[in-house]
């Protein structure tokens, strides 16, 4: 992609927060429950009911604010945002307006070797409305619409950035970093929904708002599409003349103009009078921060110290998927060749899992199974070629390595098995042996190759090397 035209992007991200119960009542949160089963008088907004703040959800909001380097105001409170819509049980949403849980933060990302600081304007908590189900079609074609209030009251965190991105690729890095932070705080996992509204403009043009883009991948795709559209137009001297709202289509992977009302909605915010102010004194903040998990950047740094990994390797483990870093650490407890473990995990196992389209947390391979495999490699009894075959099998079956080897009729070559073969090869190749003794290190590789061939490429290289050296010396 050529990027000779500068653009400006600002994001408004909404992420569902992982929680057992809703933000203002005790109802469970379960995306798979039968419609309208996880509801009570409060999340249905029955007259007389009152909200009560879920303390854990609130504290998670404070943790996010802290992780995004935001200020947490001394007094945090909630507001009512009024608008009528059929998915709303109260026709107002409890959200944060004047004083949210986090203000004026930033997140640093790396882009093309450069460090960029993306400013965070605010982070606030709010409740999700219910879900509209357009039976037998979409909003324009279905005969009627059903409402499922299970989702009403599910906590959301909204994060608003300044327009600090200059390229859609930066958004990818930013979202990836944000996702890793939320995962490490145990507030988000990959099954959950992330949505965004994005403002994007190129130099010389007005801004376009792309609304309600759902899912990590779509956010990037929508921005790339919109960037290219505006860039190509700009090259032809065509600029967006008037601020415009567009929607992204999953099907066509394009954006289309969205018809919106002339005047912007007036939400008539008032303070939420049913919820008391949250006083955020130093003691309370300290207590919340003390219960905060390690953040991804801290983890990368620890990995470079504790496991002597390069920063790049540590970054791969931590930022690909929190579960990958957890998997690595589970193995590293007993397997101390950290570099070898990193290579087999991040290169080979991950490649196989990606090929099968499963994430590490959903895969059949447990750290215990993988450790057994790594022990086989470490013992030097497996050739690399064979090991690569076996890791594929391991990734797709999740069977113990011994069992896989047995079923594939793979013989383990012990020293006792190898010795006669080595002796035979040495006798056959006197010249190579002599060269080695003269100091030609390459000739040992020739000998190893001969032995490997005899074992059908199943024995481990390092093991063979050791034995040959022992015999010749």
């Amino acid at each position, binding site marked *: 992609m050529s990027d000779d035209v500068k653009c400006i992007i600002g994001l408004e991200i909404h992420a569902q927060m992982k929680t057992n119960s809703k933000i203002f009542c005790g109802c469970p949160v379960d995306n798979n429950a039968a419609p309208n089963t996880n509801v009570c*008088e409060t999340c249905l907004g*029955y007259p*007389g009911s*009152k909200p009560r*703040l879920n303390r854990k959800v609130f504290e998670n909001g404070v943790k996010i604010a802290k992780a995004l380097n935001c200020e947490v105001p001394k007094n945090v409170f909630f507001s009512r945002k*009024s608008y009528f819509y059929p998915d709303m049980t109260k*026709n107002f949403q409890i959200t944060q307006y004047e004083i949210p849980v986090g203000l004026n933060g930033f997140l640093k990302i790396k882009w093309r070797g450069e460090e960029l600081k993306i400013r965070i304007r605010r982070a606030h908590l709010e409740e999700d409305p219910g879900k509209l189900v357009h039976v037998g079609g979409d909003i324009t074609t279905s005969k009627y619409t059903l409402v499922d209030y299970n989702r009403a009251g599910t906590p959301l965190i909204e994060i608003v950035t300044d327009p600090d991105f200059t390229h859609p690729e930066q958004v990818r890095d930013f979202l990836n970093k944000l996702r890793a932070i939320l995962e490490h705080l145990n507030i988000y996992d990959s099954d959950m929904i992330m949505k965004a509204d994005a403002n994007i403009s190129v130099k010389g043009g007005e801004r376009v708002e792309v609304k309600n883009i759902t899912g990590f991948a779509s956010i990037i795709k929508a921005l790339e599409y919109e960037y290219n559209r505006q860039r190509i137009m700009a090259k032809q001297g065509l600029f967006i003349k008037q601020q415009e709202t567009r929607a992204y289509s999953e099907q066509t992977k394009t954006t289309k103009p969205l018809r919106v009302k002339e005047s912007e909605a007036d939400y008539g915010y008032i303070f939420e*009078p049913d919820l008391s102010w949250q006083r955020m004194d130093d003691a309370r903040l300290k207590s919340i921060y003390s219960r905060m998990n390690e953040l991804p950047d801290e983890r990368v740094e620890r990995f470079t110290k504790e496991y002597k990994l390069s920063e790049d390797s540590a970054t791969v483990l931590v930022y690909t998927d929190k579960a990958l870093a957890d998997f690595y650490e589970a193995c590293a407890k007993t397997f101390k060749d950290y570099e070898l473990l990193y290579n087999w995990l991040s290169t080979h196992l991950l490649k196989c899992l990606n090929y099968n389209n499963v994430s590490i947390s959903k895969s059949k391979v447990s750290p215990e199974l993988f450790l057994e495999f790594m022990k086989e490699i470490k013992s030097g009894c497996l050739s690399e070629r064979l090991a690569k075959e076996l890791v594929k099998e391991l990734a797709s079956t999740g069977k113990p390595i011994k069992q896989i080897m047995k079923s594939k009729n793979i013989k383990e070559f012990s020293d006792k098995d190898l010795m006669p073969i080595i002796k035979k090869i040495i006798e056959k190749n006197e010249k190579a042996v002599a060269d080695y003794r003269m100091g030609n290190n390459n000739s040992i590789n020739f000998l190893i190759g001969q032995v490997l061939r005899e074992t059908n490429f199943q024995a481990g290289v390092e093991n063979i090397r050791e034995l040959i050296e022992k015999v010749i010396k």
Partner: protein
Amino acid sequence: MDIEEYVNKIKSKKLNAVNTIKKVISKVKELNKEYNCFITICEDEALEQARLVDKNRKGRLAGVPVSVKDAICVKNVQATAGSKMLEGYVPPFDATVIQRLKDEGAIIIGKTSQDAFGFGSFSVNTNMSVPKNPFDKNRSAGGSSGGTACVTQLADFPHIGIGESTGGSISAPSSFCGVYGLTPTYGLNSRYGLIDYGNSLDKIGPICKSTHDTALVLNIISGNDPRDQTSLNSKKIDYTKFEDIKNYTIGLPKQYFQNISPSVKKSVEEVISVLKKLGIRFVEVDLKTTKYHIPAYYLIAMCEASTNLAKLDGVRYGSRTSFTDSDNYNDYYTSVRSKNFCAETKRRIIIGTFARMSGYRSQYYLKAMKVRTLIINDYKKAFEKVDCLLSPTMMFTAPRFDEIEKLDPLQEYQSDLLTCGPNLAGIPMINVPCGKDENGLPIGFHIIADHLNELKILSVANAYEEAMKK
């Protein structure tokens, strides 16, 4: 027979709850025909409760009949809050205060008439039923807890009334009906289960025949409730253990004695001389913020109310209307709300929505919130020098319905002048009956104290009540 005496007779089986409640129900049915004090009389639920009482004979309110303002939810009994919009809404839960009353053996006999959603001072702003004054059926029982005050005055049996005040809705009807009505400190009694008017102002309180009954009910319904996050976590007090008031200093806010009708003024002056004889010292107090009480109160109350009423859209509960294919959801909301809200409800929704629109918000809503803080400080300053404040409760006695009809909305709002200040500040007040005017209509005076000083106002009320018995 006061409540304690009655409860003892139930407990010692000298009285049977089912028989008593049957008599009470037939009596209130009669009264209701004449005075419209109830929207719902819940005979079946009441008798069910009475049977339980006869079985257990337990609780500080065993077998005591209770009438509840319709805006306060009673499980499985319709709650309309005085509006057709909520006709047919049957809450599946008890308000916390109702739960606490039931736990003590109290028996809910019905839900009482009120201004729709509490929007009024005379209980006439409703499309359900308008209660009449017990002393003159051509006059108002006061509002918005009019039905509760009315039946409390009329009941010739032990009875507890539960009302709710946002800007004076316990004091006004108590004054007009000649009963005791206590508006507690904001947050003392849980609001859980109250159909909201202005959430930052709403308070549930007892309306009773005596100070002692009032204090007893407060003992039972007060206290922290985790279901209401604005509920206070204050120390439990026995409100029936009245204090000696001999060395109290009471302030008379000079602004609260202007434009008072002569009979009310005379009556309250007599109260002052009775209390002086009991050893109370009186001083004049200057409440400089008084002229802002009404505008600040109405702005905040209407802004909050207009958001609270948004949920009443005819989809999930209450009144519905027909829906045609050509309608979109907005048309439906408009038609169901136009049909079922009465004029005053619409007025408050429109004003409240206007005052919080961007462009007007800072000049109305936010300014009123700031003024509210100044008003609270004004009272706080007064309470540095005095134990309580005393004033007439209302500037006049119960008006006739034809007089009310002639009032424009602003004139009606002006009638809250003496009550909305303390309501805005969230401080407690009690109406104490003190004689009648030339038409035989009750007059009441107000005792007001600082936050959580309910015991002080109850002590003064009781001392006056006892003095008048002699």
